[in-house]
């Protein structure tokens, strides 16, 4: 079975799962089996099929599993959001289609993604400006104490989602060129390999940028996400674990310092350490999220069964259920098994992404694939870790699941870049890769 046929085959169960999810939600909410779920399933499959055909023409060698896995996450998101609010789900479906259009456009116009390397400084500046945009007067928006959104007229979006791609492209290109000097110039001091001082500057800049985000954008999650992706890239580029250890130490010192001095960061950490201190106010969201997860049990309460609002009112029982705490809602409705499946999907995407990096022939492709995969997986970790109280809860989205146009569109662009790298890598390895595919076990 060729790569593209496997992709097509994988899309069938995804569409079936979406249909089953909608059927269950309808059965629960309006006590009827509606053929509307079949129509939604058919729409979903048609959209995926169109994308699949486009991939078949444009990127015949690209990784076959990434798109179905992303579609599966979308299916989870659509069902869960529909179950919270049908009109939000319609928006989300529109975002899904728009995301796929941008996905196709990225593949169309960035076939030769090496141009990204040529414009790396422009891209870096764009990325930083995007990060700063929410603090600009007039267009910036403050949400829950963090400056995340930009609103210019009818257009509102979260620039951090796009700037993560810009910064990964820049770092991949920068480290591709400078990795050698970082390794060769390294000196051992007291048994620790230190990077050469003169090439240490850019690392300090990235560290400074993430600290800056912590303080001025007040976005703990993105700050962690960017810095961790940077360390992952640095490790892959140089193979020196000591650089990563130094980076982590710097981040921890910085984060600790700001947690002690900046009130917003301080509050977040306090709520994380002791949510019971103010159960009705600041600790409410995380506590409700944990209770919802515990309530789910092994197999969950079933689709449409979770209480999102206090019965009879519109007061939220699970605050921000369609964005921040959507993972808790999934745990509540599908239990430990459903939630583990979601984490498994992210793990599989990460595995495929790193596989692409392994196969890629040149340094930039390798680092690009690594960086994109890392930033994507870490984003999933930051928000899942947040709602399960592993790390302080912050407002990043759960990729492909959470409600939100910026997140969906940006992640589809990220996916398009990964597939572009994958297509070139596998094309170079040759037809052997294609014809050597194993026979599919249909048992």
């Amino acid at each position: 079975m060729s790569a593209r046929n496997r992709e097509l085959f994988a899309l069938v169960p995804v569409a079936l799962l979406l249909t089953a999810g909608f059927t269950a939600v309808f059965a629960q909410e309006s006590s009827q089996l509606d053929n509307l779920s079949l129509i939604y399933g058919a729409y979903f499959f048609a959209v995926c099929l169109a994308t699949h055909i486009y991939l078949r023409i444009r990127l015949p060698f690209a990784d076959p599993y990434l798109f179905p896995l992303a579609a599966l996450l979308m299916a989870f998101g659509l069902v869960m959001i529909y179950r919270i609010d049908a009109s939000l789900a319609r928006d989300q479906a529109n975002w899904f289609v728009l995301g796929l259009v941008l996905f196709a456009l990225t593949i169309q116009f960035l076939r030769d993604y090496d141009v990204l390397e040529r414009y790396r400084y422009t891209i870096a500046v764009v990325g930083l400006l995007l990060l700063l945009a929410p603090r600009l007067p007039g267009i910036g928006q403050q949400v829950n104490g963090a400056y995340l959104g930009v609103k210019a007229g009818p257009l509102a979006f979260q620039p951090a989602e796009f700037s993560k791609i810009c910064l990964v492209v820049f770092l991949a290109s920068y480290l591709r060129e400078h990795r050698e000097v970082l390794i060769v110039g390294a000196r051992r001091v007291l048994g620790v390999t230190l990077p050469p001082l003169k090439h240490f500057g850019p690392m300090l800049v990235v560290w400074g940028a993430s600290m800056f985000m912590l303080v001025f954008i007040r976005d703990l999650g993105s700050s962690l996400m960017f810095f961790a992706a940077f360390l992952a890239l640095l490790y892959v580029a140089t193979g020196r674990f000591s650089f990563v250890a130094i980076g982590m130490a710097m981040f921890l010192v910085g984060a600790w310092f700001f947690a002690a001095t900046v009130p917003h960061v301080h509050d977040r950490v306090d709520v994380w350490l002791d949510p019971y201190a103010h159960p009705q106010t600041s600790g409410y969201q995380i506590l409700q999220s944990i209770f919802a997860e515990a309530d789910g049990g092994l197999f969950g309460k079933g689709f449409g069964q979770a209480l999102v609002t206090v019965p009879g009112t519109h007061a939220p029982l699970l605050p921000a259920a369609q964005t921040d705490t959507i993972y808790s809602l999934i745990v509540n409705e599908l239990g430990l098994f459903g939630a583990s499946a979601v984490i498994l999907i992210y793990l599989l995407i990460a595995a495929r992404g790193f596989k692409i990096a392994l196969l890629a022939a040149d340094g930039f492709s390798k680092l690009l694939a690594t960086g994109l995969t890392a930033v994507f997986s870490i984003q999933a970790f930051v928000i899942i870790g947040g709602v399960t109280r592993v790390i302080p809860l912050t407002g990043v989205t759960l990729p492909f699941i959470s409600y939100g146009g910026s997140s969906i569109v940006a992640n589809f662009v990220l996916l398009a870049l990964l597939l572009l790298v994958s297509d070139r890598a596998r094309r170079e390895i040759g037809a052997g890769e294609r014809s050597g595919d194993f026979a599919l076990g249909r048992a």
Partner: protein
Amino acid sequence: MDYAPISVALKFGFLVVLYLFLLWIARSALKDLRRTASPAPDATGFHQAPGFAPSPGAADAWLVAERGGGLNAGERFDLIGGLSIGRSSEADVRIDDRYASGVHARIFSRDGHTYVEDMNSTNGTLLNDATLSGEAELIDGDVVRIGDTEFRYEAT
């Protein structure tokens, strides 16, 4: 009509299909990984210089990469017919080194002896830690250094 049994059935059906699907992907991803484990001998596959497969035995003299230059330490270059070392793609041994010139140095043989010659490089070539001016004969164990890249000359 009571839809509770249908809801429960749908929930478990959903989970079963979901896990079978993930199992299928994980299985094929695993097979895929085993099959293509070879292209990257080290963790990242960065240090492979394509097109320079070592072929010992064909000549009686080799240049052995010691460190740096994006080469694998211990990689051997056969010296039959001589070769050039540099940063550009014109060089026979392409090294990834900031301090290397496009075609930095060349190694050639004359009357059964092997010589190294600096090709007017910007930063110079070191032979056994001494700056090389023009050309010099190589003897077994000599170390040629270009920027941060070191080669050892081996003859039998």
